[in-house]
Structure formats: C-alpha cells, structure tokens
C-alpha cells in the first residue's frame, strides 16, 4: 500500500501504523489491506492461545488448591478434636472406674492403718497404689505402663493385706497376754490403760500422716496427669493453628489464581476485540479499494 504522510507524522503503512496492541489500526487514515494485517491477526491469535493456556493452568491450580484446602480443613478438625479430648482428660471429675478402684485401694490401705495401728506396711501399700495410678496415667513406661501399674497395684494390695494380718496377729497376742495376767494389780491395769491411750494417739498421728502422704502422692500423680493432658492440648492447639495458617495460605493462593484467571479472561477479551477490529478494518479497506478502482 502507498504510504501517506500526514502533517509531518510518520508514513502510514500496515507494518508501522498498526501497533501490536491492535488499537493503532483504527487510527490509520485508510484501513490496512487484509494481506498485511495477517501478522497482527497471528499475534492476537497467539495472545488468545496464551490466555487460554493461562486459563487452563489457573483452573488446574484452582482444583489443586481446593484439594489442599480440604486436606487442611480435615487436619484442622482432627487437631481440634484432639484438643477437646485432651481438655476433657485433664478434669479430675472425669475419673474412670479403674481410677476409682485405685483411689479405693489407697483409702483401704489408710483405713487399715487406722484399724490395726500398723503403719509402715499400710503406708507402703498406699504409696504403691498411688504410684500405680501415676504410672498408668502418665504412660511413662510406654506399652509396659499398664503391666507396671498392675504389678504396683497388686504389690500395694499385698502390702495392705500383710499389714492387716500382721496387726491382727499382734492384737490377738496382746489379748492372750491380758488373759494370762488376769490377777494383776490395779496399778498395772492403769499403766496398761495409759499405754493403750498413748498407742491410740500414736496410731491417730500415724493415720493422719499416712493420709497426708497419700493425698500428696495423689496430688502429685494428678499434677503429672494434668501436665500430660495440658501438653497434648497445647500440641493439638499448635497443630490446629498450623492448619489454620495453611488454610489462610491456600486461600490467598486461590485468590491470586482467581485474579490470574480474571486477567487471562480480560486479555483474551481485549485480544478478541482487537482482532475483530483488525478484520473489520481489513474488510473496509477492501471495500474502499474496490470502490476506488471502480
């Protein structure tokens, strides 16, 4: 096509006048002939293809993020469930039957001290039972904890029983001695009474000490149990937070992909508009050219 210069500006040719943006074609004095705009058509077709590829990629990315989000949500739910479970476990009021039995074993051991006046074995029994309780709750021996706790519990029971038996025998022996000394004097009886009162006080002291020791041991075991449950709850909370962060990241990626999708769509739309303008211009050119020749 002949180049036409207008008021000192550059000559209007198809190759120079038409901008790669596709908008310059409408600024030309005469529309460029169809043959010369093929390059631009190809360019915008290529842009459109690129937009399509971007759209496809974005769609795949959307699906991926959707799957990742689902996974993260499942993780979050699991972590929250674990947190709830751990929070429940630490409550004293929610002791199971086994716990009640162990507490009862300790109480029986202490009662044995009160009844028999024998302390050492009974206290050992109480401590063993408390230890068993702690071992089972903290699971400090791993899989073996159950058996260790069972052993300690059994030993505690045996110690309590031995205590009862030992002091029962002692009491029988004392009764027999009293029968033999039937004709003893009144002063001896008074001494025996004072000795009995002293023994009763000592027994009371022993019982109170044993109760204190048992309570301490119980509180210690409970403290460990609470700490373990609190740790589990904290860790579950941390996992939940991690899952929340992951979800937030995934959502951000999702938003970005959506933005890219919008961009690609807009680019394609713009490219198509320009392409249609180019074709329209080319058709007009042909018409004008045909009219001029005619």
């Amino acid at each position, binding site marked *: 096509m002949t180049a036409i210069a*207008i*008021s*000192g*500006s*550059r000559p209007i040719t198809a190759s120079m006048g038409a*901008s*790669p*943006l596709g*908008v*310059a074609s*409408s*600024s*030309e*004095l005469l529309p460029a002939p169809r043959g010369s705009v093929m390059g631009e058509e190809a*360019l915008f077709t*290529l842009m459109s293809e690129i937009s399509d590829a971007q759209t496809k990629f974005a769609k795949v990315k959307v699906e991926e993020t959707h799957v990742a989000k689902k996974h993260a949500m499942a993780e979050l739910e699991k972590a929250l469930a674990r947190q709830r479970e751990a929070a429940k476990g630490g409550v004293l009021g929610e002791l199971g039957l086994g716990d009640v039995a162990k507490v009862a074993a300790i109480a029986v051991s202490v009662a044995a*001290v009160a009844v028999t006046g024998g*302390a*050492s074995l009974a*206290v*050992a029994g*109480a*401590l063993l039972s*408390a*230890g068993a309780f*702690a071992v089972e709750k*903290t699971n400090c021996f791993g899989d073996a904890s159950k058996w260790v706790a069972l052993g300690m519990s059994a030993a505690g029971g045996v110690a309590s029983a031995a205590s009862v038996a030992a002091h029962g025998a002692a009491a029988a022996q004392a009764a027999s001695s009293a029968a033999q000394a039937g004709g003893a004097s009144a002063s001896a009886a008074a001494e025996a009474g004072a000795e009995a009162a002293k023994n009763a006080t000592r027994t009371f*002291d*022993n019982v109170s*000490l*044993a109760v*204190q*020791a*048992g*309570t*301490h*041991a119980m*509180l*210690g*075991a*409970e*403290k*460990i*149990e*609470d*700490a*373990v449950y*609190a*740790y589990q709850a*904290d*860790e579950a*909370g*941390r996992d939940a*937070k*991690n899952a929340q*962060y992951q979800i937030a*990241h995934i959502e*951000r990626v999702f938003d970005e992909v959506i933005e890219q999708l919008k*961009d690609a769509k807009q680019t394609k739309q*713009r490219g198509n508009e320009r392409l249609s303008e180019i074709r329209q211009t080319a058709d007009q050119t042909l018409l004008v050219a045909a009219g001029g020749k005619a």
Partner: protein
Amino acid sequence: MTVQGCQGPKSVVCSYDTATEAAASAQTEDANLLPEPMQALATSTDLGAQIAGLILLAGHEQRKSAKLSREAAEAAQKAAEERELKAMHEQATAKLAAGVVGGVMEIQSAAALGSGVDGNRLVAEVKSKVIDGFAKVDTALLNYVADGFGEDAKRAANGASHAKSAIDDARDQDKDARDTINKALDLYKEYLGAKADAQRAAFLKA
C-alpha cells in the same frame, strides 16, 4: 538518541529520551521473543503513544515492585509463623516439664512424709517441706521459661500479622497498577480513535 517527529517543549523531548532509555534497558533486561507493546509505544514518535507507553511502563514497574514486595512479605510471614509454632511447642514442652517435675517432687514429698509413720515425724515433715520448696522453685523456673516462650510466640504472631498487612498492601498496589494499565489502554484507545477521526476529517476536507 535522535528524536524524530517529536516537536514540542523540552520536557516532551526529555520524557521521550527517558522513555526510550527505559525501553532500551527493559529490552536488555529480559529479551522476549514476542514483541513488547509497551516499548513500541514508548519509542513511538507519537506523543499520545509515548504518554500511554510511559504510563504502561510505570504500571508494569509498579506491578513488578508489588510482586517483589508481596514475595518478601510472604516469606516474612511464613518465617514468623514457623517461629510462632516453634515457640508454642517449646512453651508446651516447658509447661509439661514443670508439671511432671512438680508432680514427681510432690510424690517424693509424699514418700518423705510417709517415712515419718512409726518414725521421726518432725524429720519427715521437714524433709517433705524441703522437697516441696524445691518443687516450687523448679516449677516456677520452668513456668518462667514457658512464659518466655509464650512471649516469643506472641511476638512472632505479631510479626506474622504485620507481614500479612504488608501482603495486603502489596496486593492493593498491584491492583492499583493494573487499574493504571487498564486506564492507560482505554485512554490510548480513545486517543487513537479521536486522532483517526481528525485525520479522516482533514483528509476529506483536502
């Protein structure tokens, strides 16, 4: 560089030079196989095309800058979140240690107290109290350490929050840049349409 067909005040010439320099530097930075529309516009002899090209280049640069800022903020946020989670773990571990140490020492105290049965009660009680005292000190120390980790976790969470704000700002910046680019394209299209109409009218008059 020679300025062709650019007749106007000095500032226009300067802007043209700047545009061409920017276009040249952009060309050397990343050589694309496809044509660069912005460079073509910026190096055009048409004033409207130059302005549009400059705005487009500015928008493009703004987008690049926003992308870099966003990437940096994202990395900072991720690092802060990791720090926070690590501190939370350390805090939980320290709290567990405090609880276990406290519990174990309480059981030891109970054993010491139990030794007073049928023995010297005073000594047993003193032993128990001493163990209780140590338990309190140990627990307090471990709780202090746990609180320190808790503070670290809070600081890291604040850092993550700031980084998130920076990400949002970068996204806004990117959106603004896109709007600028779109506006520049629309304006250029309008400009070209008006110019073409004027040229047609002039041609027909002649």
